[in-house]
């Protein structure tokens, strides 16, 4: 009983005590009270991690004498209103995913930070910085580019417009009684279309179908209309390059590529490839596809193809891709993404190619390692192995079970119906499953997916760099990782670029340690002060 009373009394006395000890500025020397701040975060339908993270982070920040209003926002609303709509009120805590194209630093430096960049929802604009991050994009020489990228990170660090709190750790759990050589795709999440673990897995039993217990359906087999940037369709349609588990971009349908000029890439196709209907893959198909894409500008592809000017054939296996401006990120962002359509099945199509129902027309045909077999909406997809492919997997096919909920996925993994699960189940739950069941193995996938803390850089108090830095010092990355993400996230490094990006990350940025007292001291130094209730006030004007 006494304990209960003390627990109740503590939150009342704590701020008063702090105010009594640390208070130097008398009330009349203070400016206005810092108003309540809104924290927007992904609503619970994206998983409870965001709510939990926002809660623990704000708990620490409120020790600076701040009060917060928690505002859950649905994913789509968050994106259109806050990320690209400029509707950030005060603060946001949210994540960006570990997409394969984000292994290039441009996304982190430019897309989320440059003046006027579409996804710069923190509304920070620094012309000198923006010029730097635009320039690095055009540096085809890598050493030079790395130096520029690191310099930009330093600039960002010194200004501190926003910061990452944690890097997401993904996971996968698979049936090790039936499958071996299931390899990690880190730092990219186990997105479909990658080599690892999808193509490298090997069956140990007669069951030679790799069953992926998944949450969602695939929505189309027409790659021109596909919304997922790196989806399942890349199994059916080959791309020019692929990302491997070392984070490198390796030759795939293209045997080699070379910048002959800053805006011209010469690409040589691999020899002996065929489409699933037996026709050979030639430079004509690649040129046809790229020119069609440039002509049609399918909305779903717009972010990746915006810089493409067109393609022209050199010989049967060689062609040139023309770029509008020099683009150093072309290799990592476009080559593993752009696909090859069979010209003979598409050239004479009269209707709207983007809207074509390729399954109904029987032309879900590419040259990829798997051939389309069946699709029952919201239930199952089956792709069978295309044996003639140069990297055909050592099993008969892959199935995607659209189970729609975590409990079914868990049950599928336990019963042996599912061979691998990578999504939906929280990583902690996957890890638990593997610990409790001998036939399941678990692998952590540390990724560059990041949870970011955004501030509205155009609104007080965030217009004050001293305030931003104090908030940064009061950000408990550790608690967010442990309590928000159940330990399946790691505290992020300094600067906007995730440290998982290896050579692109500026490891020289000094680490800022979490310290509430230091943050309060910094605020005091900048002229802020606290009233008798312990609430933070602006400096006197």
């Amino acid at each position, binding site marked *: 009983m006494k304990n209960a009373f003390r627990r109740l009394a503590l939150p009342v006395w704590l701020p008063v005590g702090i105010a009594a000890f640390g208070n130097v500025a008398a009330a009349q020397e203070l400016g206005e009270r810092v108003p309540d701040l809104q924290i927007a975060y992904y609503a619970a339908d994206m998983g409870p991690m965001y709510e939990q993270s926002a809660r623990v982070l704000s708990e620490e920040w409120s020790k600076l004498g701040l009060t917060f209003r928690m505002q859950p926002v649905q994913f789509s*609303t968050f994106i259109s209103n806050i990320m690209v709509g400029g509707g950030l009120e005060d603060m946001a805590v949210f994540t960006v995913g570990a997409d394969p194209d984000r292994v290039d630093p441009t996304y982190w430096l430019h897309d989320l930070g440059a003046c006027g960049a*579409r996804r710069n929802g923190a509304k920070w604009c620094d012309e000198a910085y923006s010029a730097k991050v635009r320039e690095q994009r055009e540096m085809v020489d890598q050493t030079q580019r790395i130096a520029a990228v690191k310099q930009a990170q330093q600039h960002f660090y010194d200004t501190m417009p926003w910061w990452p709190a944690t890097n997401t750790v993904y996971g996968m759990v698979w049936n090790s009684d039936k499958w071996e050589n299931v390899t990690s795709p880190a730092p990219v999440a186990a997105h479909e279309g990658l080599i690892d673990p999808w193509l490298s897995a090997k069956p140990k039993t007669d069951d030679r179908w790799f069953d992926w217990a998944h949450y969602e359906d695939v929505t*189309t087999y027409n790659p021109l209309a596909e*919304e997922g940037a790196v989806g399942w369709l890349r199994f059916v349609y080959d791309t020019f390059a692929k990302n491997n588990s070392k984070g490198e971009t390796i030759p795939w349908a293209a045997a080699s590529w070379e910048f002959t000029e800053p805006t011209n890439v010469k690409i040589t196709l691999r020899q002996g490839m065929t489409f699933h209907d037996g026709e050979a893959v030639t430079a004509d198909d690649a040129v046809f596809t790229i020119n069609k894409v440039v002509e049609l500008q399918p909305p779903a592809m717009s*972010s990746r193809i915006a810089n493409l000017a067109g393609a022209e054939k050199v010989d049967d296996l060689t062609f040139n891709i023309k770029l509008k401006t020099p683009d150093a990120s072309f290799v990592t962002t476009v080559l593993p993404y752009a696909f090859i359509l069979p010209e003979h099945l598409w050239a004479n199509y009269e209707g709207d190619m983007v809207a074509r129902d390729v399954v*109904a027309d029987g032309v879900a045909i590419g040259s990829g390692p798997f051939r389309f077999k069946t699709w029952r909406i919201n239930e199952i997809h089956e792709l069978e192995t295309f044996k003639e492919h140069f990297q055909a997997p050592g099993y008969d096919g892959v*199935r995607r*079970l*659209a189970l729609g909920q975590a409990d079914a996925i868990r049950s599928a993994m336990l019963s042996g119906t599912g061979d691998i699960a990578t999504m939906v189940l929280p990583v902690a739950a996957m890890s638990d499953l593997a610990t409790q069941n001998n036939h399941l193995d678990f692998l952590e996938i540390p990724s560059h997916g990041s949870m970011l803390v955004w501030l509205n850089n155009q609104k007080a108090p965030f217009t004050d760099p001293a305030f931003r830095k104090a908030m940064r010092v009061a950000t408990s990355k550790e608690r967010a990782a442990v309590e928000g993400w159940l330990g399946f996230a790691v505290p992020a490094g300094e600067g906007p670029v995730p440290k998982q990006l290896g050579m692109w990350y500026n490891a020289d940025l000094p680490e800022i340690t979490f310290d509430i007292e230091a943050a309060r001291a910094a605020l005091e130094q900048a002229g802020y002060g606290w009233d008798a209730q312990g609430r933070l006030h602006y400096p006197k004007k």
Partner: protein
Amino acid sequence: MRAYILRRLAQSVLVIWAVTTIMFFMFRVMPADPTAILLERGLSDEARNALLEQWGLTGSLWDQYVAYLGNLLVGDFGSSFLYRKPVWEVLTPLIINTLWIAVPGLLLGAALGAAIGTAVGWARRGGKLERTGIFLATVIRGVPNFVIGIALLTVFSSTLGWFPGFGMGDPGQNVGFARYFTLDFLHHLALPLIAVIIYFMPENLLLMRSGVVENRTEDYIELVRAKGVSQGRVAWHAARNSMLPLITWLFPALAETIAGIVVIEIVFSWPGVGRELVLAVTRQDYPVAQAAFFLLAVMIVLANLAADLVYGKLDPRVVYK
């Protein structure tokens, strides 16, 4: 009689129009943005507008509304934003899947409920059977359907391992229509079906019991009893006359229950139309969500209409005006 039917029909059409309109504006004022996923990946403004235009989301709300109604009149629900194909193609297989658990589940639930309800109603008033029956039925009626699902899954799937815990069939089985006639399908069907039966039975039971209690004191029952026929036959007479309110209640209840099966579909990962509706709402796939909603509303209206007409057919006392 004919005039009455015509008037009721006209009324039904009006009601459907009103529901459609409410629904249309609800979806359009939704603050959500169906292009969000693409935006997050860097969709440009021009491309976004092109997409919105293609989906018929540009122009004034009124124009969109008129276009929508026009399409609806010819049975065109438009195309799914997500699947990029006609909504009909997306929904038809899912509707069939839902009917597989809904129809047998509701019929069995109603039949079982009616049978037990007759027994309870015919039992001695205030006796043990009556009191237990009423108590159990009321308690079971209070179990939310997802709790029924969770309980069934935990007991029969994870603990005993008798039934599979999700989906409609093991992968790699028959495709096409033949799949509905495999043991594998029936095996998967069992648990969700039982869940629907349990969900639907108690109300039938209580209703039937009330009807029987009401009828057993009527003169004609005494008459039948006086003829010296068996207890069972007498009970049957009382039951037959209690069917009437049950049947009229059944139609709207059927429709409403089908709409409520959403939750059971989700718990059991049953690829039905209800699950698709929930997914479509979260994915901002309005055309699919609207169509599913529309079909459910039409079903309810038709059920109410049928109930009225059947009531008149069965009960000679009703005179149509």
